């Protein structure tokens, strides 16, 4: 604590240290706030705005409409539990990354980071909380899709329960990778439209490039996230598929996640 003798800073206001009965002091305890509270706050922030809530509603609505349409007009023999679940998760694969993006960029585009990062100055933990909150929310949405698909199967499907553990697990893993990719791109660009366009366009551009340029074809197999998740969705992962999944995820998820996190940790919050 400061005393008038050790201070080089001229003081203003109040009473001098010696006169004051008890000087206020900092609360004891480790820096920052417990992680569970940061996680809870970040999860809440993902769904308490109109944009966030509408994202969830649109995902649920799209899944419901696709299921209903398929039951009415689709080939009846394909309407098994697995077929219906694959259909209902189709819009999720596209929209869940957007949820991750919005979670990552809001602090900067709406400048709420001024509050968030003063309440928890250890920004790395905020980033971790955001990633986990996005995954948790995706899990909830996925559970809803599973329930809707089961219901559709009972109501108008074949009544066949043909989901294997490999397909189910693959589906969950693939969706989680896409959510993390969204978070990663959000952190990388810290700008919602740029991140959304990049997530949707860059992988497609890469696919086209690898198809058009023959020298890139071999590399394409290892670095095309959409291609390497195909066997994952199908539940047909073999040895090399896992290796290709790892390399593609490394480039499209881990790398932007690392660079983006570094940006958030070092960027000046204004």
């Amino acid at each position, binding site marked *: *604590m*400061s005393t008038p003798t050790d*201070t*080089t*800073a*001229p*003081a*203003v*206001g*109040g*009473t*001098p*240290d010696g006169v*004051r009965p008890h*000087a*206020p*002091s*900092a*609360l*004891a*305890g*480790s*820096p*920052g*706030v*417990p992680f569970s*509270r*940061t996680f*809870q*706050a970040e999860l*809440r*922030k993902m769904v*308490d*705005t*109109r*944009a*966030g809530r509408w994202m969830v509603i649109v995902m649920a609505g799209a899944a419901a409409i696709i299921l209903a349409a398929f039951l009415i007009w689709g080939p009846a023999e394909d309407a098994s539990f697995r077929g219906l679940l694959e259909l209902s998760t189709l819009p999720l694969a596209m929209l869940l990354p957007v949820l991750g993006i919005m979670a990552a960029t*809001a602090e900067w585009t*709406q*400048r*709420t*980071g*001024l*509050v*968030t*990062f*003063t*309440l*928890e*100055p*250890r920004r790395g933990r905020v980033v971790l909380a955001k990633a986990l909150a996005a995954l948790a929310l995706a899990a909830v949405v996925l559970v809803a899709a599973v329930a809707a698909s089961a219901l559709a199967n009972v109501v108008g499907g074949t009544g066949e329960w043909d989901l294997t553990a490999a397909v189910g697990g693959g589906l969950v893993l693939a969706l989680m990778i896409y959510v993390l990719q969204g978070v990663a791109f959000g952190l990388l660009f810290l700008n919602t439209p740029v991140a959304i366009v990049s997530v949707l366009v860059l992988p497609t551009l890469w696919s086209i490039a690898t198809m058009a340029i023959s020298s890139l074809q071999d590399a394409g197999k290892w670095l095309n996230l959409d291609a390497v998740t195909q066997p994952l969705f199908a539940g047909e992962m073999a040895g090399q598929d896992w290796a290709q999944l790892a390399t593609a995820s490394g480039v499209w998820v881990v790398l932007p996640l690392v660079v983006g996190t570094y940006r958030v940790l070092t960027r*000046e*919050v*204004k």
Partner: protein
Amino acid sequence: MIRVENLTKRYGGFTAVDDISFEVRPGSVVGFLGPNGAGKSTAMRMMTGLTPPTSGRTTILGQPYRELHNPGRQVGVMLDASAQHPGRTGREVLRVAAVSIGVSKARVEEALALVGLTDEEAGRRVRNYSLGMRQRLGIAAALLGEPQVLVLDEPANGLDPQGIHWMRGLLRRFADGGGTVLLSSHLLHEVQIVADDLVMIGRGRIVAMGSKEELLSRGGTSVSSTDDARLVQLLQAADVPVSRTGSGLVVEAEPRVVGEIAARESVVLLELRSGGSEGLEEMFLGLTAATSREGDAA
């Protein structure tokens, strides 16, 4: 308490904050006053760990901000009232902060009442808030964790005169309870109402600091008369430094000296007082003229 030691921030060749040092003691409301671009906000961001300083350090309650335990419970911070998600309601903004700080929903309602936001207003989205309401919401967020220190950037901006007096009462009570307040402003009359002590900053450097009274008395004597031109001549003849302001003269002498000269030479005085807002205004302009943007053009 807030302590700033040799704090400096450079952006490339531009020095935004240039080696400033001061300490804000408990029980005081201190105004951080300076023209736009003087470095107030940059300094406050460095105090709260959002901007890394180029050199120097700051502590709050004896610790660097980033090492504080649950900072929201110790330091209330509002750096920009407009930096709120427009899609959240006022109440929701506070509820999210309450989760992070670890205070109850009841405290959220208390904080809303404290800043005079009604139930209906709290349920409105921030998008539909006026700047004055955003300021109140920002102050409610700062007070949420019942901190000992407040750091507020331009909190009176957008408030009507009534609101500014309300804020004075609120901050005064906070300081009387042993709290420490540092608030910034680029408007002298605003900070004069709200703060008791001033730290003036211009182009990144501290140009003056002290109690308002002290700085006011340094501002000389305000005087106006039916014939200011003649009074200036008389004062100059008596070797009393004098300068003109918009509404009269500022004289660097006791009111008595001016009164005696005026009486002897039969000049009709309309106003004669020590300091006053014009005096401080004059000093503020004088102190910052050399360092403000306008100073560049002149």
